[in-house]
């Protein structure tokens, strides 16, 4: 179940990532078709591309920790989150997760845009393995936190992207999982909601929970995290004290090349 049912001691391991490698094949076409495949037969052009998303990543997250994950686009941040959440199986290595995980990845909840926000919350929760009663008991709080009011019963295709993100954040932050993963969701929404969600994150920052935040908002990460990991091209470059790691990352962004990148680990 998603809700935290166990109490965890600080410094107890929440997530252990060992020598994680992730390689996958994906279609080059956004919409691969039989027609395109048939046409390409004679020409022998490639239809798929192999992507090495993660390479030899070692990472431990302890309870009581708020880990920020930074890195340029395509660094493998989202892939790492998906492996921890059990959405993508690793190609190499081993991931151990002690506790329940709730994910708020970049795309958020709401898979069927023609259904109402309410239906989507229920379906998302049920798919994640929650029971109806569990969702019932959280629903009021989710609806209130999202401030969607009547719109909660409107089809989600009528939602603005901000409303979408608000609902997604409310779901993830309300179910109180042992391990919460938030992937680039803090940057959406208006200033007021941004502050509200930031406060919620700080509230959730308790000893018996582990938080992993993926974000490009460095100031926020400096503010809330007590640990930061920097990924680059699927490799873990640096891990440690937020200010130090973020400074190094920002310096790297300006210089464009860092000694640490060239080193083969």
């Amino acid at each position, binding site marked *: 179940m998603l809700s935290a049912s166990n109490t965890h001691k600080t410094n107890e391991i929440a997530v252990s990532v060992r020598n994680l490698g992730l390689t*996958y094949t994906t279609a080059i076409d956004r919409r*691969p078709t039989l027609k395109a495949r048939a046409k390409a037969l004679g020409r022998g052009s490639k239809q798929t591309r192999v992507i090495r998303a993660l390479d030899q990543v070692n990472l431990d997250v302890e309870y009581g920790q708020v880990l920020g994950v930074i890195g340029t686009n395509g660094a493998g941040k989202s892939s790492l989150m998906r492996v921890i959440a059990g959405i*993508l199986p690793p190609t*190499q*290595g081993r991931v151990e997760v002690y506790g329940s995980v709730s994910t708020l990845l970049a795309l*958020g909840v709401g898979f069927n845009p023609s259904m109402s926000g309410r239906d989507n919350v229920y379906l998302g929760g049920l798919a994640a*393995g929650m029971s109806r009663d569990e969702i019932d008991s959280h629903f009021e709080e989710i609806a209130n936190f999202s401030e969607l009011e009547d719109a909660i019963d409107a089809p989600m295709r009528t939602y603005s992207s901000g409303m979408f993100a608000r609902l997604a954040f409310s779901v993830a932050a309300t179910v109180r999982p042992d391990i919460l993963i938030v992937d680039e969701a803090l940057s959406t929404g208006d200033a007021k909601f941004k502050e509200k969600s930031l406060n919620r994150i700080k509230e959730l920052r308790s000893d018996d929970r582990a938080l992993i935040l993926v974000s490009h908002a460095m100031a926020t990460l400096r503010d809330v995290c007590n640990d930061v990991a920097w990924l680059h091209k699927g490799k873990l470059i640096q891990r440690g004290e937020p200010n130090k790691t973020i400074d190094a990352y920002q310096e790297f962004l300006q210089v464009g090349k860092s000694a640490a990148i060239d080193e083969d680990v």
Partner: protein
Amino acid sequence: MSNPLQVYEPFRAGLPPLGRYWKSLWSRRTFVAEYSRSELREQHFDSVFGQMWLVLNPLLLSGVYFFLIIIISGSSDKTRYAHLTATLFLFYLVANSLTGGVKSVTAGQRLILNTAFPRIMLPLSAVVIAIFKFLPTMAVFLVMRTILGLPFDVEMLWAVPVLLIAILLALGLAIAISCINVYFRDIASFLPYLTRTLLYLSPILYEAVDLKPTLKTIELFNPLFPLLDSWSRALVHGQVPLMSNLLISLAWAVGIFIIGTYFFLSREREFAVRL
């Protein structure tokens, strides 16, 4: 440590651990129920007019085809009409499973990218929806059969195992096609031609016994042929279906279900990177 521990390790090619998969699927059965319910509600099948359309659509179709039969063969009778309607309704159970199932995985993109769950729930829900659409048409058929004055026999109960075989077949087809659609997104556009061909190749507009022997060899490759013949024999004619037909259709259904499910389960872990 009392915490639930999950370990993710590289998987070998082939199936995931089936016991764990089944447990995880079973614990999410409310999702299937809830999904079908909201989908039907969204398509307005919870309203009176929605339900009426559900029944009216195949009834109108059977009416049109009935005219077609009269025009082509010059004559027809009430048994023929009952046969046409009964088989058309069952055909639509399979066809609706296919059309609902084909996009079930690709449409569930957001959910697949963000949540870990047994992906097979999506085509499964599509079949449950098709069954819910099928049930009221069955009630209409029974009323119609009474009005036509066809006698009710105990042998009609043979329709129950035939229906179960049809559901298994529909499930296998939906699972297979939803998986194929991930790799070839234009399968959905071929589907109308496929179902139309199946419709004409199946004993719906004609009865299986009327078919020329030379054509019967082709029908060995149509899984719906023995199925619809058994269905019509039991439900319309009140006879015991041919055991050979029952067994052949069962073999088809089990075969397609096993192959489709194997294909789906061994592929579903990479859906997240293919969508």
